[in-house]
C-alpha cells in the first residue's frame, strides 16, 4: 500500500514505480524493528515511503545468529549504505520491540556519521485489546 495517488493514464506505460535514482532526501526516518530472533532496519523518508531496508537475515546471518547485536549492527550498516550515497544527513530513529538490536543498531547508526535528531520508541501498546498468546512454561 503506497501513499502515492496513481495517475489515471499511467497504467498504459507499464510498471508504476518510483524512479530508482534521483530522489534526494536530506532528512529521513530509520525504523528499527528488534525482535528476539531478528532485527529489521528500514529507511524511509519523512512521509513514510520506504527507500531501502535490510535485516540481519539478509546481511548474511542465519538461524540463532540473527538475534545477536553484531548482526543488528551489520543490518543497520547495510540499510544506511544506500542512503548515505543519496545524501541523507539527519535521521529520526523509531524503535520497535524488545531485543538486542535496539542498542546495537542505534550505535551503528550513530557511528556511521548520520546525525540522529530524535530517538522514539514506537512499540505497539494495546489499550487492553487482543488476548496475548499463552504463557510459556519453563
Amino acid at each position: 500500500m503506497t501513499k502515492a495517488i496513481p495517475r489515471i493514464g499511467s497504467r498504459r506505460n507499464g510498471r508504476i514505480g518510483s524512479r530508482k535514482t534521483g530522489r534526494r532526501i536530506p532528512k529521513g526516518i530509520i525504523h528499527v524493528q528488534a525482535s528476539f530472533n531478528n532485527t529489521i532496519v528500514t529507511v524511509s523518508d519523512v512521509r513514510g515511503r520506504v527507500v531501502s531496508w535490510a535485516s540481519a537475515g539478509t546481511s548474511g546471518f542465519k538461524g540463532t545468529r540473527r538475534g545477536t547485536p553484531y548482526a543488528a549492527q551489520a543490518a543497520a550498516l547495510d540499510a544506511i549504505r544506500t542512503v548515505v550515497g543519496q545524501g541523507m544527513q539527519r535521521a529520526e530513529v523509531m524503535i520497535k520491540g524488545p531485543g538486542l538490536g535496539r542498542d546495537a543498531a542505534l550505535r551503528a547508526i550513530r557511528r556511521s556519521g548520520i546525525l540522529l535528531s530524535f530517538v522514539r520508541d514506537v512499540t505497539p501498546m494495546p489499550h487492553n485489546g487482543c488476548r496475548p498468546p499463552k504463557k510459556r512454561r519453563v
Partner: protein
Amino acid sequence: MSLSRSPPSPLTLVAPFATTAGGNGRRHQLLLPNRSWTNPNLAASTRVGGGASVRCMANQRRVKMVAKQIQRELSDMLLTDKVLQYAVLPEASLGADRYLSSLTTISGVEVSGDLQVVKVYVSVFGDERGREVAIAGLKSKAKYVRSELGRRMKLRLTPEVRFIEDESLERGSRVLAILDRLKEEKLSSEGKDVKQLEPLNSSEQDGDGDMDDEDEGIIYIK
C-alpha cells in the same frame, strides 16, 4: 550425612523426613528423596543440623531456558511497566511522549546453577548522566522487579535480581569506530601515494579483508 550415589537404605530415607518434624521448616518441602543415585545430572546435598539448608542444582538445559525466559519477561517489563519506565527515564512521567534521551536494553541474563541468583546485564544508550540515572533507577527497583517476576513466572523460588551495567556493546562500538577510522586513513594515504586506479582497488579489497577478520574477533555478550 549426605546422599551419595548408592541405593537408599532405610536409614537414609528416614533422615530427610525426620528433619521436617524437628527443624524450622524453612525449605523442608524441598527435601524430597530425589534420586541422585539414578540421575547423574541432578546432584543434591543435604545438611542435617541447625539450619538445614538444601542446595539443588538444576540441570544445565533448564538453567538456560529459565535465563532466556527471564530475559524475555524483563524486556517486556521495561517496555510495558509504568513503574519501571519512570525509574529508568524520569522524564517519561512528565509526558515526554516517547522522545527518549536514553534507551535501556537488557543485553544478557545469567542465572546461577541453583536458580537463586540472577545477574541482569543492562546496557544503556545515551550520555553519561542518562546512564547513571537509568542504572540507579533500576537498582532502586530491584525488589519490585523481583516481585513482578514472581508474579509473571511460575518458579518455585523467585531468584534475587541484581542489575549490572554492561559496557561490552559500548566497547565494541568504540573498537569498530577506531577500525573504520584506520581503514579510511589507510585508504586516503594510499590514494595519495598511488595515483592509478587498479592498485587502489586491490588495496581496498585488502583493507576489507582485514576489517572482516578483526570484526569477527569481537564477541558480544548476548
